[in-house]
C-alpha cells in the first residue's frame, strides 16, 4: 500500500515537472519571440522612419531645385532684351524656350506689362493671343508684390481665372537705363505658373516606388496644395473646420489628431523632423521638411510612410509565436498524455500483478492446506492401516498357533477348533468392518433405500438377540417399547439393522445383568431410536471420541462398529449420540440414541400410536 502511494507521489512529481518544463519553455519562447518581434518591428520602424526622412529630404531638395530653376529661368527671362525692347516676336521665342525648359513642372510663362496686363503668354498663337491679350491681372499678388519689392515672388495658392489652382513665381522686369535708385524702372513682371496637379504628379514621380508612402504639400500659410489620394481637400486650410473634421473622423485613436496638428504646427514654423502617429489605427511615420527657395520657406513637404512592413513582420512573428506556443502546448499535452498513459498502464499492470500474486498466494495457501489435509489424511490412513493390521494379525497369530498345536495336542482338539473358528469369525467381522470403513471413507457407501415401518425392523433385530440372550445369559431382559406403532422411514434396511445390531450387541456385551430397552418414537420430523442399558456405562474419558475408529474396543469387538454406525446414520441424514445414564454413578448403564428423518410425519399416526411394551 505504502509502495503504491509512493509510486503515485512520484507520478505526480514527474507530471508536475513535465508541466513546469512545458510551461517554462513556452514562457521563455514567448518572451524570446516577443523580444525578437519587437526588435524586428523596431528595426523595421526605424527603417520606415529613416526612409521617410530621407525621402522628404530628397524630394524637398528636388522640388526646391526645380523651383529655383524656374526662378532662375524667370530671372533670365526678365533680363532678356526682347522683353525690355518689347519685341514680341523674339519675346515669344524666349518665353517658349523657358516653358520648354521647365515644362515638366510649369504650366505656362506669362509676361505682364507695367500695369499688370498680359503682354505675352508661352505657347500661344495669334488666335489665343487675341483672347488673353490685355487681360488685367494687376490685382494679383504675383504682380503687385514684385512690382513693389522688385524681388522674386513665390505665391500662395491662387485660383486662376480659369478656376485651375496654381502656384506662381514672379520676377520683376526692371529697366536699368540710368544710374542710382531712381533709374530702376519696372517695365513689367514675368510669371511662371505651376499647376498644382502637375506639381502633385511631379512629386508623386519622385517617390521611391518600393516604399509605401504618400505625399503631402502645404503652402507657407498652411493651405493644402497636394495630398495623395485626397485631392478634394486641396485649397483647404489645414487647421480649417473641413479638414479638422475629416481628421477627427479618421483618427484612431483620437489623440493622434492632436499629435498630427502639433506636427503640422511645428512643420509650418520651418522645422525639419518626423513623428509617429496612428492614422486609421495604423502606425505611420510622417516626416516633414520645408521646401526653401532662395533661403525662404516657400512650401512644406510631408512624406507619410505606413509601418506596414513592421506590422507585417510583427504579425508574422506573432503568428510564429502562436504557432510555437501551440506546438509547445501540444508537445506538453502529448508528454502529459504519454506520462498519464504510462502511469495508468503501470497502475493497471501493478493491479493485475497484485491480483495474480493474490491469486497465486491463495492457490499456494489452498495447496498448502490441501497438502496439510493430505498429510493428516495420510497419517490417519497410516494409523488406520497400522491398527487394522494389528487387529488382523492377532487372530491370524491365534489361528496359525492353534493349527500347529492341534497336531501335538489331539486331546485339546475340540477346544482348539472352537478357538480357530472364533478367531476366523473375528477375522471375518474385522474384514467386513474394514471394508465398510473403506467404503465410508471413499464415500462409496451405497444405500438401498426403501419405505418401511421402523418398528417392524427393530422387532426383528430384537427378536434375534432375545433368542441369543436367552440361550447364553438369562439374567438380562430385552424390551422393545413402541411409543408410536407406525414409524415410516425411507432407509437401507440392512444398514439400519446393522446399526441397531451393533448398538444392541454393545449393550449386551457391557450388561451382565439388568434390562436393555429399545424405544422408537416420533419427535417432530424425526424418528428417534434409543437403546438404554443398565450395564457398566461408558468410560467418561472416551465419550468425546466414542464414535471414532478403534476407540471403544471390547474383547470381541473390532473397534469400528460405532464409527460405522455413525457413518450409516449420518448417510441417512440423521444423528447419533450417547451418554451415561448417571454422570456420577458407575454401573447405571448407558444410553445410545440415533435419529432418522421421517418419511411422512402425519399427526394421525403420531397420536394413534399407543405406548406399549413388547417383551
Amino acid at each position, binding site marked *: 500500500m505504502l509502495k503504491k502511494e509512493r509510486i503515485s507521489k512520484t507520478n505526480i512529481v514527474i507530471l508536475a515537472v513535465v508541466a513546469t518544463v512545458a510551461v517554462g519553455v513556452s514562457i521563455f519562447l514567448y518572451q524570446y519571440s516577443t523580444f525578437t518581434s519587437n526588435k524586428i518591428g523596431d528595426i523595421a520602424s526605424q527603417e520606415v522612419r529613416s526612409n521617410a526622412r530621407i525621402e522628404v529630404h530628397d524630394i524637398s531638395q528636388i522640388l526646391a531645385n526645380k523651383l529655383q530653376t524656374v526662378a532662375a529661368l524667370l530671372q533670365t527671362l526678365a533680363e532678356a532684351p526682347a522683353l525690355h525692347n518689347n519685341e514680341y516676336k523674339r519675346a515669344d521665342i524666349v518665353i517658349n524656350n523657358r516653358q520648354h525648359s521647365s515644362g515638366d513642372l510649369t504650366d505656362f510663362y506669362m509676361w505682364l506689362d507695367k500695369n499688370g496686363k498680359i503682354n505675352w503668354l508661352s505657347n500661344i498663337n495669334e488666335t489665343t493671343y487675341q483672347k488673353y491679350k490685355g487681360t488685367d491681372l494687376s490685382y494679383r499678388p504675383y504682380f503687385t508684390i514684385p512690382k513693389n519689392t522688385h524681388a522674386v515672388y513665390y505665391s500662395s495658392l491662387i485660383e486662376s481665372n480659369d478656376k485651375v489652382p496654381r502656384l506662381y513665381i514672379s520676377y520683376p522686369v526692371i529697366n536699368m537705363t540710368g544710374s542710382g535708385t531712381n533709374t530702376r524702372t519696372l517695365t513689367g513682371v514675368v510669371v511662371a505658373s505651376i499647376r498644382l496637379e502637375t506639381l502633385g504628379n511631379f512629386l508623386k514621380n519622385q517617390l521611391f516606388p518600393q516604399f509605401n508612402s504618400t505625399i503631402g504639400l502645404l503652402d507657407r500659410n498652411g493651405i493644402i496644395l497636394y495630398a495623395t489620394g485626397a485631392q478634394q481637400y486641396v485649397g483647404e486650410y489645414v487647421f480649417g473646420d473641413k479638414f479638422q473634421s475629416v481628421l477627427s473622423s479618421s483618427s484612431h485613436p483620437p489623440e493622434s489628431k492632436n499629435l498630427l496638428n502639433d506636427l503640422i504646427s511645428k512643420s509650418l514654423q520651418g522645422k525639419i523632423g518626423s513623428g509617429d502617429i496612428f492614422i486609421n489605427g495604423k502606425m505611420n511615420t510622417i516626416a516633414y521638411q520645408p521646401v526653401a527657395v532662395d533661403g525662404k520657406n516657400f512650401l512644406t513637404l510631408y512624406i507619410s510612410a505606413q509601418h506596414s512592413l513592421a506590422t507585417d513582420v510583427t504579425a508574422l512573428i506573432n503568428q510564429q509565436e502562436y504557432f510555437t506556443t501551440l506546438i509547445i502546448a501540444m508537445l506538453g499535452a502529448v508528454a502529459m498524455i504519454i506520462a498519464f498513459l504510462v502511469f495508468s498502464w503501470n497502475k493497471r499492470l501493478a493491479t493485475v500483478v497484485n491480483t495474480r500474486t493474490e491469486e497465486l498466494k491463495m492457490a499456494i495457501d489452498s495447496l498448502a492446506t490441501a497438502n496439510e489435509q493430505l498429510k493428516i489424511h495420510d497419517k490417519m490412513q*497410516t494409523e488406520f492401516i497400522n491398527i487394522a493390521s*494389528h487387529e488382523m494379525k492377532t487372530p491370524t497369530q491365534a489361528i*496359525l498357533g492353534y493349527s500347529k498345536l492341534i497336531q501335538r495336542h489331539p486331546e485339546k482338539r475340540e477346544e482348539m477348533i472352537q478357538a480357530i473358528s472364533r478367531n476366523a469369525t473375528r477375522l471375518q467381522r474385522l474384514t467386513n468392518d474394514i471394508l465398510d470403513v473403506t467404503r465410508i471413507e471413499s464415500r462409496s457407501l451405497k444405500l438401498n433405500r426403501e419405505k418401511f415401518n421402523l418398528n417392524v425392523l427393530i422387532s426383528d433385530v430384537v427378536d434375534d438377540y432375545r433368542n441369543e440372550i436367552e440361550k447364553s445369559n438369562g439374567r438380562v431382559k430385552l424390551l422393545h417399547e413402541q411409543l408410536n406403532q407406525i414409524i415410516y422411514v425411507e432407509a437401507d434396511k440392512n444398514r439400519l439393522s446393522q446399526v441397531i445390531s451393533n448398538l444392541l450387541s454393545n449393550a449386551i456385551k457391557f450388561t451382565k445383568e439388568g434390562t436393555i430397552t429399545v424405544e422408537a418414537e416420533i419427535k417432530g420430523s424425526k424418528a428417534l431410536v434409543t437403546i438404554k442399558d443398565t450395564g457398566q456405562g461408558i468410560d467418561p474419558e472416551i465419550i468425546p471420541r466414542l464414535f471414532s475408529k478403534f476407540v471403544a474396543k471390547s474383547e470381541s469387538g473390532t473397534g469400528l462398529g460405532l464409527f460405522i454406525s455413525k457413518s450409516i446414520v449420518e448417510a441417512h441424514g440423521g444423528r447419533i449420540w450417547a451418554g451415561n445414564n448417571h454422570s456420577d454413578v458407575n454401573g447405571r448403564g448407558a444410553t445410545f440414541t440415533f435419529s432418522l428423518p421421517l418419511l411422512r410425519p402425519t399427526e394421525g399416526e403420531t397420536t394413534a400410536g399407543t405406548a406399549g411394551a413388547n417383551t
Partner: protein
Amino acid sequence: MNTKKILLVDDEPDITIVFSMALEDNGFKVDVFNDPLLALTEFKKGSYDLILLDYKMPNMNGFELYTEIIKIDDKVKVCFITAFEIYYEELKKRFQSSSISSYGKENVKCFISKPIELDDLVTKVKEELAY
C-alpha cells in the same frame, strides 16, 4: 540343564495360550498374564530368565511395563512382541536411542513381530537365552 522360566504378558488370551503351549512343549516354564498391571504386582526380582511383552495392551503398554520391571530387576532379558506394522520399526529405533537409561538398553535386543511361526518363536527365545 535348568528349566528356564519365562514371563509372557499379552492381553489376548488366544495368543498367550498358543505361545505358552508352544514354549512349554519345548521345556520352558511359562507364567502368563493377560493384565499388565497384575503382571507387575506379581513380578519379583530374579524370577524369570526372559520376559516376553506384548506392546499394545490396555491400561499399561509394554514399554511402560518394561520400564517398571527393570526398576525391580535390571538384569532380566526382555523381548517385545508386536503386531504393529509400523511401530515395530519405531520401537526398535526407540530402544537404540538415548531416550531410555543406558542400563535398560542392554536388556532389549530382541523384537518379535506377530504373526510368527511357533517354531520360529521357540528358536528366537532359545537364541536370546543362550547369550
